[in-house]
């Protein structure tokens, strides 16, 4: 689709922003307290139940230990967590303080001026208003709701639905950052696709104005009713930059009977970011979730989209790629619960590591006693671009049903010298040759993306590959 982006100087911020009065927060910079959480809720003018939910989550958060089984998050100042929670108005950088590597990347990816400041969290003055509103109009004519989740919470009809579903797939007890999310979540998308409605173009959250800046604790809630069909795309390949370097969003996807949801993500956080995002989908009978995932950037990542196949013959597929460069430790994976008879799951991942980067892929397949006749295959391919980098795959399987078929394969490889020589003998430079091979390796993921995203992802890989030699 055409990427029309317009500069909107005078946008009505009140629609999207909840106008923090900064003074209120100055005194609070120690622990996260019920007062802060209450204040967040009040400023959003939320229903009482949501405030109660936040406070309960806060309690859980304060009780729970940090994860110790993955990459170190010691760089996060958990004693002063409130500094990550402060509203973005407070955290906003000015353009001069945005790191050069981020600015350069915008330049190299050809990101328009207006968008750069948005992605850098500097301002929300810009929006792809036109594209977003066209998209929203078309969708709403079909009965689809596509809006900010905070706005939806103010509509009684949607409030009831949100109340019923909110953080039921990802309960605050799940892990410490899910609890944190429950307490301080802010912004995000709400999508409701009624029964039988099939949208034939993807909804793209990238085009949705989100005054919460680059989105740190955003909540995405998508409900695709029976027999409906949706493709949702979040993200963009330019690095998102936040002064506060913690991202703990949550994505909850509900897929009805015979419904289909494709959820595509390109995440590229700036390289100081701790990305502790949680994504989950639940499928009813014959429902299908497809995850397409490209994970780039961030300093440390914990990212394991999970499918709960709750209905008979429901399906999950995951196609993902992770690129870990210098200074990055990306722990990614996919979990599937085969929770009903004759469910099927495929997990196909590609991992690339370079310049001392570490990427670990964890797959977890759980077959409950109800999963008779189910099948899952997991395939992980890693490509290490040098000897200092690391790639690991950690498969886990817990099978408690009869007649379940599980397959797993993992390969770790390097780029063959013969391939480099072949390409170079055709006049292609060494760097270009490596990039071409890596892009080819990533092709199973990029070919699942709409063209403009695939192109962006290839450009991104090209950028990551620069200086990969020597």
């Amino acid at each position, binding site marked *: 689709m055409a990427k029309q982006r317009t500069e909107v100087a005078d946008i009505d911020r009140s629609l999207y922003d909840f106008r923090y009065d900064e003074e209120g927060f100055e005194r609070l910079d120690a622990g996260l307290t019920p007062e802060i959480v209450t204040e967040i809720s009040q400023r959003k003018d939320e229903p009482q139940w949501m405030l109660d939910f936040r406070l309960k989550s806060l309690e859980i958060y304060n009780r729970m230990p940090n994860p110790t089984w993955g990459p170190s998050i010691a760089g996060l100042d958990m004693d002063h967590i409130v500094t990550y929670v402060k509203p973005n108005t407070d955290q906003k950088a000015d353009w001069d303080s945005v790191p050069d590597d981020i600015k350069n990347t915008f330049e190299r990816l050809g990101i328009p001026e207006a968008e750069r400041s948005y992605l850098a969290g500097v301002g929300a003055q810009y929006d792809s208003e036109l594209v977003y509103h066209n998209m929203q109009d078309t969708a709403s004519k079909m009965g689809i709701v596509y809006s900010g989740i905070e706005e939806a919470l103010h509509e009684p009809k949607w409030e009831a639905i949100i109340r019923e579903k909110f953080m039921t797939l990802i309960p605050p007890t799940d892990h410490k950052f899910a609890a944190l999310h429950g307490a301080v979540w802010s912004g995000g998308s709400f999508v409701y696709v009624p029964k039988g409605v099939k949208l034939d173009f993807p909804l793209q959250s990238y085009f949705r104005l989100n005054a919460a800046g680059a989105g740190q604790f955003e909540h995405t809630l998508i409900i695709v009713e029976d027999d409906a069909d949706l493709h949702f795309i979040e993200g963009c390949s330019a690095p998102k930059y936040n002064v506060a370097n913690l991202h703990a969003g949550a994505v909850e996807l509900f897929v009805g009977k015979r419904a289909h949801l494709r959820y595509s993500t390109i995440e590229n956080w700036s390289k100081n970011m701790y990305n502790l995002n949680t994504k989950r989908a639940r499928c009813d009978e014959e429902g299908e979730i497809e995850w397409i995932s490209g994970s780039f950037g961030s300093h440390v990542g914990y990212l394991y989209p999970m499918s709960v196949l709750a209905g008979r013959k429901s399906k999950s597929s995951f196609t993902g790629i992770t690129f870990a460069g210098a200074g990055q430790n990306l722990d990614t994976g996919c979990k599937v619960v085969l929770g009903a008879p004759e469910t099927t799951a495929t997990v196909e991942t590609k991992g690339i590591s370079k310049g001392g980067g570490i990427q670990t892929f964890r797959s977890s397949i759980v077959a409950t006693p109800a999963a008779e006749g189910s099948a899952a295959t997991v395939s992980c391919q890693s490509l290490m671009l040098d000897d200092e980098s690391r790639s690991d795959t950690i498969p886990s399987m817990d099978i408690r049903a009869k007649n379940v078929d599980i397959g797993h394969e993992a390969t770790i490889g390097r780029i063959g010298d013969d*391939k480099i*020589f*072949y390409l170079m*003998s055709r006049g*292609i430079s060494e760097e270009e040759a490596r990039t*071409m*091979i890596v*892009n080819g390796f990533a*092709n*199973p993921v990029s070919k699942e993306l709409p063209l403009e995203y695939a192109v962006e992802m290839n450009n991104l890989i090209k950028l990551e590959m620069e200086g990969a030699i020597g």
Partner: protein
Amino acid sequence: MSTDALLSVANLTASVDEKTILHNVNLNVRAGETHVLMGPNGAGKSTMGHVIMGDPVYTVNEGTITFDGADITELSCDKRSRAGLFLSFQAPVEIPGVPLSSFLRATIAGRPGLEMKGKEFRRRVKELAAQLDMDTAYLNRELGVGFSGGEKKKVEMLQLLLLQPKLAILDETDSGLDVDALSVVSRGMDAYRASCDGSLVIITHNTRILEHLTVDRVHVMVGGRIVREDDASLIPWIDEHGFESFEREAAGTADER
């Protein structure tokens, strides 16, 4: 060394992992000439092609390679390609996920006189594919992946015709092909010669492919050495007698040492 040679390999000794494969090899090819390099399996013919092309797997211990007036012994292989050298691989590689057409596009990028706009490029490549009896559907397939031996060789010929190098080394481009594919490759060679009067160094076992070519020089390699050099009359002789006498001779010389 003849001064008017396009390619001149002089006293070349090359090795891999401390093992010397080529011993003091000489080869001179003038512009527009067709040379044939023959010899038993394991003689070092492919190594010769790779070393001329600049495969970093091999170490040049001694000697020089001069091409088009410049010493290219130390030049990286992408630069040799851009200087006008081409090697058709005996065993072309597979690059999963990279469509043949994207690869071809990259091979001409930035080459003066060869770089084309998208539309022109697609037309040109389709034209060449048709000339080589290749289904254009191949252009969208991943480079080499699932290609038969014959298809891979046709892709090599397609690149030869697209790049129009000054000199091309064809390493057993004809081997293992059926009659139809063989005639396609043979037509490809003619087309190359006709289009740019390029030089050829043909490595082959199959003398039939040479029948309608005007061969200027034949080189026989045994045990990493050029043991015989002659005009085209050597071809029917080898056809009849094979390499045994050369091998015996080579073994004899080795014994004497």
